């Protein structure tokens, strides 16, 4: 299984030339700051971005292209083969329907199970995501669940139809750390058991370090660096990745000044001609302002979009 996509937008280019692939059982992290395009990427895959923008390029899903696919056909894939969970477990469940009803609704839409079988499957799903006394809780409304439990319910609904790819948009950002750890564990466990690919969007590099196999770092609508998590986080090659890593206060003398990348991210309607990061970059060379560096392979499995990437040694020092 392979998902690859290329895309270019025009009017307000939220994303430019984003390409990556996820294979079965793989967890890919998409990191970046707000406005970097990580959520838009996710929404483009599943067709949610269609309503408010132009998506061009290709999203190859099991041999078919999702971008050119008519809405009707896409419906068949949404939820059944590709599922999505959102940041706000509070607002992504319908407050007026019981959790059981919402679960069965999904099953009704995507499976041929009978009414009784759907109910059994709903209980099974709630058990699977670790909700105690699942049978009784089917009758409960979303507000009767805590934040962490609600996110579990969301996961149960998303996975009810045993999708092959899970898109997770900041699934733990609204949760406390101890609950976050539980939910991430759950997602990883289920991905492994169901042999499912996961794209995890987050702004937290720690979450990436602890859960993902591969990571793509996004800046101003482009992927600037991608590769295996260990490699990217331990030896970042793109100056932006280095800056991002350094602004997290870890292993620093206390109460000293924190590193922060100078300047501000460019607004999407005023992107510089060359590399979008060039105006803030200390390692900027002449060609950076002229041309946009392509995302190119530098070592095995490692891609960086930079004319003057940080060397391994410098990366270590950061």
């Amino acid at each position, binding site marked *: 299984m392979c998902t690859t996509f290329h895309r270019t937008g025009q009017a307000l280019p939220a994303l430019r030339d984003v390409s990556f692939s996820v294979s079965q059982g793989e967890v890919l992290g998409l990191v970046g700051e707000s*406005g970097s395009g990580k959520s838009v990427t996710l929404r483009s895959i599943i067709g949610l971005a269609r309503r408010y923008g132009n998506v061009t390029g290709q999203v190859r899903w099991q041999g078919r292209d999702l971008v050119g696919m008519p809405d009707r056909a896409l419906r068949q894939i949404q939820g059944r083969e590709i599922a999505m969970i959102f940041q706000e477990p509070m607002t992504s469940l319908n407050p007026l329907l019981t959790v059981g009803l919402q679960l069965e609704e999904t099953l009704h839409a995507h499976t041929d199970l009978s009414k009784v079988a759907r109910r059994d499957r709903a209980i099974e799903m709630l058990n699977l995501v670790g909700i105690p006394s699942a049978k009784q809780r089917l009758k409960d409304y979303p507000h009767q669940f805590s934040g962490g439990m609600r996110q579990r319910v969301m996961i149960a609904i998303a996975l009810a139809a045993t999708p092959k790819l899970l898109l997770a948009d900041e699934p733990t950002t609204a949760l406390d750390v101890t609950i976050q750890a539980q939910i991430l564990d759950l997602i990883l466990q289920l991905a492994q058991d169901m042999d499912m690919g996961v794209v995890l969007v987050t702004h937290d590099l720690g979450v990436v370090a602890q859960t993902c196999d591969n990571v793509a770092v996004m800046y101003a609508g482009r992927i600037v660096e991608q590769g295996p998590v260990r490699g990217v986080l331990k030896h970042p090659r793109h100056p932006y990745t280095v800056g991002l890593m350094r602004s997290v206060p870890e292993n620093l003398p206390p109460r000293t000044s924190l590193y922060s990348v*100078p300047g*501000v*991210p460019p*607004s999407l*309607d005023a992107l510089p001609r060359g590399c979008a990061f060039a105006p803030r970059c200390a390692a900027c060379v002449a060609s950076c302002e002229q041309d946009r560096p392509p995302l190119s392979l530098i070592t095995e499995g490692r891609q960086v979009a930079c004319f003057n990437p940080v060397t391994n040694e410098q990366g270590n020092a950061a």
Partner: protein
Amino acid sequence: MSDAIFTPTQPTFMQRALRKPGFVAGLLIIGFSIMLAVFPGVFAPYDPNAIDYLALRQPPSWAHPFGTDLLGRDSLSRVIWAYQVNMQMAVFGTVFALVTGVIIGALVGYYRGIADLIFGRIVDAVITFPFLVLVIAVVAVLGPGLVNMYIAISVVYWVYYARLMRGEVIAQMGNDYAAAGIVMGYSDRRIIFRHLLPNAITPVIVYWMTDMALVILLGSSLGYLGLGAQPPQSEWGVLIAEGRNFISTAWWLSLMPGIAIVVTGLGFSLLGDGLADLLRPRG
């Protein structure tokens, strides 16, 4: 060092307003209505009270676009002069309720407590009682006439404004700028009137616009029933009442003031809708 992404140019309030056709139409209608109300003599072709026995109940014509009434008075001129009374209604019938309602609503919403409980009971009492019956009852006690009608409406209507304002203030209290004001040691008066009120008042203003249309309708109804403006004063309700016995032979007598009510009402509604959009804080 700064972390801004400034949007290049912010359109001004006027620029945004002019892009809304509904708002512009409402503004034109109400603007023109105000002109008619302030300078009826300039726009009315005849004296509204000039009796012409040679032209009784004439249908619309070039000389009399809205026709003439049973005493030969020019209907157009009477409808135009009625603007003075009906627009005055829209203002005086609402403004006292607006001001009292906003102040009481803001205070009750800010302090809550026992005052809020009492207020809640008043709201229940007023809202469950049919409004028109209540106003008619007050007018019946005080006697017919415009001033008594204003008093009757205001006595009841402030409750609706106060209820709306209270809800808005409570919602605004959920924003930290109110808490920040308390922490800064600002006086309650400053927090209520300088911080909460300007942010809470938008829906009230929008409601006020609709309310002015409603009050014109109510005033005309009372005029029609003989409880509001008194003949020979030109007022739309009075004019409609005068024509009601001739509806099959002289339809224009009731229809023309009716259209004036509809158009003015529409103007206020469009204005209210447009303001609701424009006054919403951005960002």
